């Protein structure tokens, strides 16, 4: 499978709340980050959790988020980050904000 994103791309995490075994933490849904690296392709844990084979494998990324963006009341330094592994089907390209 070809990966949709490259390192350096800005992406949004889907703000979706489906039931089941989801490896995308709640706190990062709907947030914007930058692809840090492509980790490779892995069986989909959302399928594996129910005893299925998780195939086809899906691209997995490490996405870097600014902590001040993630937590509105973040008390640390402005450059602090959190890196999270997120599967491709949870990511969308960040659309440039429309000029007003």
């Amino acid at each position, binding site marked *: 499978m070809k990966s949709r994103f490259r390192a350096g791309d800005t992406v949004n995490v889907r703000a979706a709340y489906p039931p089941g075994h989801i490896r995308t933490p709640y*706190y990062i849904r709907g947030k914007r980050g930058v692809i840090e690296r492509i980790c490779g392709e892995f069986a989909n844990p959302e399928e594996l959790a129910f005893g299925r084979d998780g195939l086809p494998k899906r691209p997995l990324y490490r996405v870097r988020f600014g902590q001040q963006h993630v937590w509105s009341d973040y*008390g640390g330094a402005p450059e602090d980050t*959190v890196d999270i592994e997120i599967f491709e089907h949870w990511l969308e390209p960040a659309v440039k904000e429309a000029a007003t």
Partner: protein
Amino acid sequence: MSEHAHGHQHDRDHARTFQRDHDDGSPLPYLQVMEIAMRELLIETGVITSDEVRRQIERMDARGHSRGARVVARAWTDPEFKARLLANGRAGCDELGITDLEALHLVVVENTEKVHNVIVCTLCSCYPKPLLGLPPAWYKSLPYRKRMVREPRAVLKEFGLELPEDVIVRIHDSTADMRYMVLPRRPEGTKGWGEEKLAAIVSRDCLIGVALPHAVKA
């Protein structure tokens, strides 16, 4: 209770006089019951032996962080190895002959003058067990998992690690298939040290990112 059942009943009463282990006497959780049932069936049908189960538990218990410390010591003394390790953690371990790593996908993250890395798993307790052994209890605790991602500097301070404001704190949330190990900075006062001596000052906590190694005075 009937007379003929007395023997069994007596055993159970007797067992109750002993202090329980760390459970509270409530019924076992579903998954624990399933684990016991599965294990007993596998042993009963001869797929595995109870001795194999015991040996595997002992093997896991005995595994510490010494291999992770060895990897760090090599990276401190060999810059080319360090570059290869950071590019591919697993390949770096292979070079040192550390082959018993199961399905570990290892990402090594390097502390620098400007960046401090910390590992957490907010969803459960993912940890590079083949390299660092079993995780400490606090790593699996809800407060660590919730707070390390949200107020890392406060948590690090509680661990005794106060970082300057101009050092970036980079949290790595181990949410899927990768596992992480921190490559700490080589401390002052270790010039000329051999790999073995260096490895001895790399504690488990340094490899998680909640402590820094220090040169121990001889």
